[in-house]
């Protein structure tokens, strides 16, 4: 037994866990900005998980495919508009118009996917009062169905990379450049999330969403159209996933692939849980934190293979101390 265990030990000192503090100091700001950029994308996708969980108590595992359909929407639109591997030689105005067009198509593609998913996969089950486990299995099944349908149509390889615009340095913080791409993604994502937050807390539909989340039966008795609220929730999640898709393809042009949403979906789900699933603000906090922790962790521990280890260890620790997530699960309560 002991000899066996000994062979499991690393062969030399360099294989042990070491903390590279100087490297973290040196790369702190760029790790922060990159972490926030990716964190914003996680957060936008996480909102889709959180909203659906809030109203249905369902973990919609097919949301990663709602997201990837948005990525395909971005790809096909920009491809059609003549974007290629090099940064386009277009005027500023036409780039904005093109990107807005891609954004709209992506939002429509994702929202439509989410809508169909709800109609074809979940609503029939709700009609029959299926147990919760059945919903979960259906979600996983729907995820695979969409993934492999894309695989059959588009093949195993990612789509060719498209460059939307070349990132430009905007300002620098202690010598670390913040570029236009990072700034655009973070600010646009935060604005969208503030907008969703206000929408949920002030609009009539938002009130309906909160009412259904709190108590579906009473909400129905009070005149809320539950089915309509559920569809709306899926569509809002889809629209946000479409926006995330534009930013994701902007950052990672070669990410448009049949299974390209899978890992991002898992991270976004983790972000939702970290912030408090069912909580709109929690998704933002969770997403940004997950992006930052993963980046700090991998630099501190010396290599990128630690990213997910660190992120998920932190997730577990947070959940041990606060099982409901950082901001708690509160879509139903008025805090959202």
């Amino acid at each position, binding site marked *: 037994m002991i000899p066996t265990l000994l062979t499991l030990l690393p062969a030399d000192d360099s294989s042990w866990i070491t903390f590279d503090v100087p490297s973290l100091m040196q790369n702190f700001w760029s790790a922060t900005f*990159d972490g926030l950029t*990716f964190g914003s994308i996680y957060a936008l996708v996480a909102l889709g998980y959180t909203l659906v969980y809030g109203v249905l108590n369902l973990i919609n595992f097919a949301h990663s495919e709602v997201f990837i359909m948005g990525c395909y929407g971005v790809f096909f639109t920009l491809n059609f508009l003549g974007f290629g591997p090099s940064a386009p030689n277009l005027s500023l105005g036409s780039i904005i118009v093109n990107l807005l067009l891609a954004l709209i198509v992506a939002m429509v593609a994702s929202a439509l996917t989410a809508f169909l998913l709800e109609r074809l996969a979940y609503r029939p089950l709700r009609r029959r009062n299926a147990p919760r486990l059945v919903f979960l299995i259906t979600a996983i099944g729907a995820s695979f169905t969409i993934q492999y349908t894309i695989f059959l149509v588009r093949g195993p390889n990612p789509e060719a*990379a498209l460059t939307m*615009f070349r990132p430009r340095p905007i300002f620098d913080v202690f010598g670390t450049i913040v570029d236009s791409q990072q700034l*655009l993604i973070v600010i646009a994502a935060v604005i969208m999330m503030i907008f969703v937050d206000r929408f949920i807390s002030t609009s009539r539909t938002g009130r309906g969403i909160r009412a259904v989340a709190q108590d579906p039966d009473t909400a129905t008795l009070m005149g809320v159209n539950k089915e309509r609220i559920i569809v709306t929730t899926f569509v809002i999640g889809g629209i946000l996933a479409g926006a995330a898709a534009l930013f994701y393809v902007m950052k990672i042009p070669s990410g448009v692939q049949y299974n390209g949403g899978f890992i991002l979906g898992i991270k976004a789900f983790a972000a939702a849980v970290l912030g408090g699933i069912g909580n709109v603000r929690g998704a933002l906090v969770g997403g940004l934190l997950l992006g930052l922790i993963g980046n700090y962790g991998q630099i501190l521990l010396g*290599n990128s293979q630690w990213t997910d280890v660190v992120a998920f260890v932190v997730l577990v620790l947070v959940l041990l101390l606060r099982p409901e997530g950082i901001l708690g699960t509160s879509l139903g309560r008025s805090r959202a």
Partner: protein
Amino acid sequence: MYRKKAITTLAAAATVGMLLASCANQAAPQATGGGATTGAGSNIPVLTSIETPKDAVLPAGDGKATCPSTTTIAYVGAETGANAQLGINIYNGIQLAINQHNKSNANCQVQFKKFDTEGDPNKATGPVTQVTKESNIIGVVGLPFSGESKATGNIFQQVGLVHITPAATNPTLTDNGWSTFFRGLGNDAVQGPAAAKFMVDKLGAKKVYVVQDDSDYGIGLGTTTSQALGSNMVGLDKVTTGQKDFSATISKIMNAKADAVFYSGYYAEGAPFDQQLVGKGYTGPFVGPDGLKDDQFIKQAGDASANAFFTCPCIPGELIPSFATAYTALTNAQPGTYSIEGYDATTVLLAGIDKGNQDRAKLLNWVKTYDADGLSKHYKWNDKGELQAPAVYGYKVQNGKIVPIGQIGQ
């Protein structure tokens, strides 16, 4: 309601404003970044022809061979999966060799069977076991990748079935005591030092940043390259298969002021990595091994791929006119990476069959004692199954195409 509209308008206006700000001056030059420019590398001339051995053994043979009509050679390796293209390049080379052999030898029609592993070590054992059970299969070309070769070498060993890999380059594969495993190309113990020498001598790099993935191949090659670089290496990072965001690694590279980056892995990660690296303003060369050398790399990295160089223990088959013409006639495509290696490995097996080695034991013995020129290089193995005189070639990207720049590491 009024309030909601106001917020909507505000959000829309702010988003457009952001877009405006971020796209402004987008035609202006790039941010400053890593040290050297690609200038050093772009001077390296493109190789336009290579010498082929005069007395190379060809699949056609003398035309007088006889063998049972059940005699079969198999290809086991990726036909689908993320890295399928390498597999397709290989089995087309095999198909060409068998077609040429069968056309010339009317009394020896060798069958060809393909088995798909998706290039995945976990999925490879099934097809390999099936191959060992089909007694008509007396020789195998494969498996192409190091991970799957490691997972299945024992199965071939148990039944004494000879297999020549046309692509797996992890050095430790020949340390397993397998007597049925033969490598039809140089391994990474040769490729790593050749890559290091190329970066330091030809590209003039003094501070190379090495990044390796978590595959057997990436780790093995990363190690041999780092060792050969010695003090010319400025840092090492490790990434995972399937990773898409390389921003933290790139931040370290930029802070280290690296003048060359070596990525030890496959194109699925290497391409987005190079693209993000260039997007952050890195202007030095990006060097990768055979796992990156594929048109998919260019497709997925976009314009960023212009700074890429590849090292490969593979011979540029497209520069051998007789082979390239026949290959294009068969497949409507140019020979790809490892097409000629697949062709040559098959030729070794076919030559054995023609000489009457028509069961597994005899064919294994034939390969063991083989000593002759193939179209691409000389084939003679040592007792571990390594080629005695492997060659490593350098390649670069020019106008969106991968072109050879000659033998490196000498």
